[in-house]
């Protein structure tokens, strides 16, 4: 982006809730600029609430969200929309809207009803659609697209806003594995090409480790751990945050931490007759996995 000043996002002493129920009690965080930050945690731990508060969708009862050091509630909402874009978890599109039309609506904060659509708006839309690879389906109605295509179109709409900061609430939730990786790879591209600050909520810890530069693990409305993936995703933290016993081994492809849940029925002895019966099978399975990872050789992510 051509802006000289990079935008910063932080929260200070936040308390947020719905009705009488307070979800976040006292939370402070700094979102690293130009990095991909992933918020993880169990259901109802407040990760979406935090994201929505950062995006000024929810008003904190105490504390402030700071955009470039100023309280986000004090900045006109339209001005915020030129610095910070948001993709909600389940956005709704009007029936029959075409791809180009939807992406074009991302230009709203940059147009005035007096200043009508201009060439620069067309250019911004074209750029957003090129980088998300949806230009070839510009005339298609959204309803006819696959889930992955649709998610790319919504991301294109957020990109047309031309913001330095992009917040995404579970962008992979309703997608199959291929499309999940397509979307996550796209986010890395966007982060690399423009140094965009990206914050997203993800459920899959392995994906969080692979695609996040910075992880925030939450439990009961508090941050339990934050830092780079190998600092955050340890067996102790996952046990604490999710209440699930796991093994953490190096991801055989990326080298990042990989979480292997143990669970109660880890080794289905009734099915696996090759496993030595009677031994403590949980540890055995984990050991086998670690061995296989070691045998494959742990690959470091290849620099581009």
């Amino acid at each position, binding site marked *: 982006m051509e802006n000289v000043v990079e935008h910063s996002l932080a929260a200070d002493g936040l308390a947020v809730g719905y009705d009488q129920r307070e979800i976040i009690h006292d939370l402070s965080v700094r979102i690293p600029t130009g990095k991909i930050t992933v918020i993880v945690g169990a259901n109802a731990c407040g990760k979406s609430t935090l994201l929505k508060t950062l995006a000024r969708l929810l008003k904190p009862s105490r504390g402030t969200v700071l955009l470039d050091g100023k309280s986000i509630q004090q900045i006109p909402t339209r001005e915020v929309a030129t610095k910070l874009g948001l993709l909600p978890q389940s956005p709704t599109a009007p029936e029959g809207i075409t791809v180009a039309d939807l992406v074009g*609506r991302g230009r709203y904060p940059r147009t005035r009803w007096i200043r009508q659509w201009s060439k620069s708006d067309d250019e911004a839309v074209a750029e957003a659609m090129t980088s998300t690879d949806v230009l070839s389906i510009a005339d298609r109605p959204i309803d006819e697209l696959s889930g992955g295509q649709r998610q790319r179109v919504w991301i294109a709409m957020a990109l047309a806003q031309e913001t330095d900061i992009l917040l995404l609430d579970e962008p992979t939730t309703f997608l199959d594995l291929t499309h999940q990786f397509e979307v996550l790879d796209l986010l890395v591209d966007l982060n690399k090409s423009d140094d965009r600050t990206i914050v997203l909520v993800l459920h899959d810890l392995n994906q969080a480790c692979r695609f996040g530069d910075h992880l925030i693990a939450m439990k009961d409305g508090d941050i339990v751990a934050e830092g780079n993936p190998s600092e955050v995703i340890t067996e102790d933290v996952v046990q604490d945050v999710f209440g699930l016993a796991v093994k953490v081994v190096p991801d055989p492809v990326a080298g990042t931490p990989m979480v292997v849940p143990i669970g109660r029925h880890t080794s289905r002895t009734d099915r696996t007759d090759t496993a030595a019966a009677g031994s403590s099978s949980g540890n055995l399975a984990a050991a086998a996995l670690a061995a296989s990872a070691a045998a494959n050789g742990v690959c470091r992510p290849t620099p581009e």
Partner: protein
Amino acid sequence: MTAEAVQVIARARAARQTRSLVVTVVLAVVVFATFCVSLSLGDFKIPVIDVVKTLFGGGDHATEFIVNTLRLPRALTGLLVGTALGLSGAIFQSVARNPLASPDIIGVTYGASAFAVFAIVTLSLTGVAVSAFAIAGAVLTAFLMYVLAWRHGVSSYRLILIGIGIGAIATSITSYLLTKARVEIAQQALIWLTGSLNGRDWSNVRSLAITFVVLLPFMVFLVHQLRILQLGDETAYGLGLRVEVSRLGLIVIAVLLAAVATAAAGPIGFVAFVAPPIARRLTRSPGPAMIASGLLGALVVALSDLVAQHAFGDMQLPVGVVTGVVGAPYLMFLLARANRVGSGG
């Protein structure tokens, strides 16, 4: 990014605009033709060509008197009422993202009716006073609805359910008042309740026209925001729209349009409900298709009034009897066809 990419975007935008423009122009022509035909018919028939001449100031005294003085106020009232209902329905349905949310389904026009019937039956009022009561009824009903539906903002389904509930209460009140009234007065109230253009004069045209002139700038401003509101509350917030403020503004405009139309001609049913979906399908617009909705509302009322006045010989029906019969089959046809293609909903 390449220049071709920019061209793809510009072309896609042009294609969308061309379609709406063509549909709008065709609709405007059809509305004008219907309008001229309705001015030409009556006890004394005037050729359509003379009607057009007279409208543009070139007719003789006799036709000028018949067209401009006798028939024009009624026809214009019909057009303006239809336009107001079409616009009101388009705004309501888009704000609530639900085709059921038109002012004649949720309580607004029922509230207006209850108040008007109270004015006619209990207070023995007529004319402008009844209209004033109708407007007060519509505004009060809408206010009550909005307040009851409010919980950290107004959600669509709450608005519709509460609207239908209030509508039922208003209908009960209307029925109660009618059963208590003397037969002649009840008959008078019933005619009002069906929606009629009979005996409308320039005062009706004036009040409708003033409403349009006052509301137009707000409408242009807020409809621009309606396109963003349609993307869902969270996305709209993200794009920097003050969601509750613009939703409230849009509802106020839609209520005023419906209220003024109801005050002028009674609760003409089905127009606000049927015009916007037809307009959207004709323009293939994902947005509210405001201009086309207004034109279609005017067309439905004008056509219905033609039928009501002239199709049954000497018997003249109130226009509200016909609107449903004209509008509903077309909507059903469109829905059936869309469902067969698989894009209906």
